[in-house]
């Protein structure tokens, strides 16, 4: 499957969805007499996106030197599981940040990240995150006077 066609397909669906969502944009009564309102640009973008996507679907490498011969997809190559694990860790970090607080959640994220990427020296995995995050906390809170909430769960446990 050609990369151009996959991209064209995705963009067509995106532009179509965008155009449909644009119909939900409310308008003011006076917009009837205006040349342009809150929906105008979204409709233009949606139309342009769909037209260009169709061009890309029909001529997937229309402006490519080799006619797209080298564009065959190797999307599954690479360490995808590691990438997915890192992204899951980012999402987990976002979900626990306000509960556990900056210090603990960031240190846990770093430790998890080190483990996912293959670091197995336990002093590094357990000690380095707290050292790094502690230094950063000192720079941000006492140094730059930025307030970082301690975490709702910890506040409830320790008052």
């Amino acid at each position, binding site marked *: 499957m050609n990369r151009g066609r996959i991209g064209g397909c*995705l963009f067509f669906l995106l532009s179509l969805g965008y155009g449909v969502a644009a119909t939900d*944009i409310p308008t*003011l009564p006076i917009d009837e007499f205006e040349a342009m309102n809150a929906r105008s640009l979204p409709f233009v973008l949606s139309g342009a996106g769909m037209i260009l996507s169709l061009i890309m679907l029909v001529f997937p490498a229309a402006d490519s030197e080799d006619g797209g011969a080298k564009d065959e997809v190797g999307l599954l190559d690479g360490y995808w599981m590691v990438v997915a694990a890192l992204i899951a860790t*980012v999402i987990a970090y976002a979900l626990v940040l306000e509960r556990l607080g900056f210090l603990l959640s960031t240190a846990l994220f770093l430790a998890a990240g080190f483990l996912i*990427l293959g670091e197995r020296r336990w002093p590094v995995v357990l000690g380095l995150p707290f050292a790094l995050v502690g230094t950063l906390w000192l720079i941000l809170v006492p140094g730059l006077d930025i307030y970082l909430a301690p975490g709702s769960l910890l506040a409830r446990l320790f008052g």
Partner: protein
Amino acid sequence: MIDGLIIGITTATTPYNLMMVCLGCFAGTFIGMLPGLGPVSAVALMIPVTYGLEPSSGLILMAGVYYGAVFGGSTSSILLNAPGCASTVVTTFDGFPMARSGRAGKALALAAYASFSGGTIAAFAMMIAAPALARVSLGFQSADYFALMVLGLTSITALSGRGKVLPAIMMAILGVMLSTVGTDATSGLPRFTFGRMDLVDGFSFLLLAMATFALAEVLLTVREGVHRQKDAPIDRERLGSMRLSADEIKNVAPAIGRSSVLGFLIGILPGAGATIASFIAYGTERNLARGEAADEFGRGSLRGVAAPEAANNAASTGSFVPMLTLGIPGSGTTAIMLGALIAYGIQPGPRLLVDNPDIFWSVIVSMYVGNVVLLVMNLPLIPYLSKLLSVPRPILVPVIIAFCMIGVYLVSFNSVDILIMAVIAVVAIALRLLGFPMAPMLLGFILGGYLEDNLQRALIINDGAWSFLWERPTTLALSVLTGLILAWPAVSRSVLPRIGAGTRAPLERE
């Protein structure tokens, strides 16, 4: 101009701002050395740091990071044959062969001197060109700005390279789509918020920049297995002498001069950037070389290192001209800087010279200082900076990701932004793998709001008629230029090969 220079020198040479230049150059050089993280990522990573600074200090820091990263990219290109950024790919053609033949130190020194020369010549040219362009553009009205925004979007897409024009246009459209999320500036009505309060203010520029250029880039390097690689430590014996003889200087000096001017002129074109400049400069010098000098290209030619290095630094400086004077970024990196300036509440463009001359001139003066710092500070530090390359990737990568997340969190203190960043990074990875460039999306995002506002204003002034596109001479000229730039890829494919038939084939690595 003299008044402006005095303001600039006074602002840029305060101890605090000098420290910012040094810090920026140092941080940029280190980040630029890391394969996978180029000037765009380096500047994006710095944005949260600059939020606590004065606008002039923040911009000076980011500018230092920018050309520090371009310089740092050449270090890993020469030592590891792994370009730190796209604009230093060409440096590998002759830089790595020089390193392999025991002349790594000479190559690094030459890259430093060429970068210094290119950046200094371009800073001088910018000192003259920028105020002139700013004065011309003071007469612009909404219709002209609209045409200029369209020109900016078109040129960055049309100059994206073969096979990339259509994807670049689509990414620019996606960027404008993302800019419509939030509250419409004119009517105050919500658009694409889906009832969520978190989206009422739209996407923050920092979030988009971090997601697409920092987080996505790092994750792509993980996908390629960078965390499994072990680089050989770099020590002084491997580097060799860093001295250049008088004959060698005489050999490369004309190439540096030509490439600096060429790089600056290419850099001021919105969308062209340092990468194109480095390729064109290398090709030009290769075509100009005769005899033995021509045969050396690709095998360790001094000119082959000097030309792209001078050109990419000159182009990096040149890309500031449209950003500061017209409010149109000249490259992806200056697009990020533009977003940062807007976050400060400062509108780059012709009024910047009038309303904030200290920022305008201090950036120009800081470029002189930054180039000196790069040469004086970084060149002796290269052997030590190179050791930093041996920090294990399993340690470095999570730290960089944590930096991204913390940066985004510190802007809004809303953890939902981190989730949005993760989603956008996943989409950005998918688009990158499908061959879609990111810089046009960022440019579309930044310019989208201005495009809509200026179009609306132009239509109101013109009673809803579109005739403003051809009635105003400036608008007409910009529209015609837009059309020509859009037609350029087709012309270059069909007409130019016939004109150039029989001349020497361009860039082919031997």
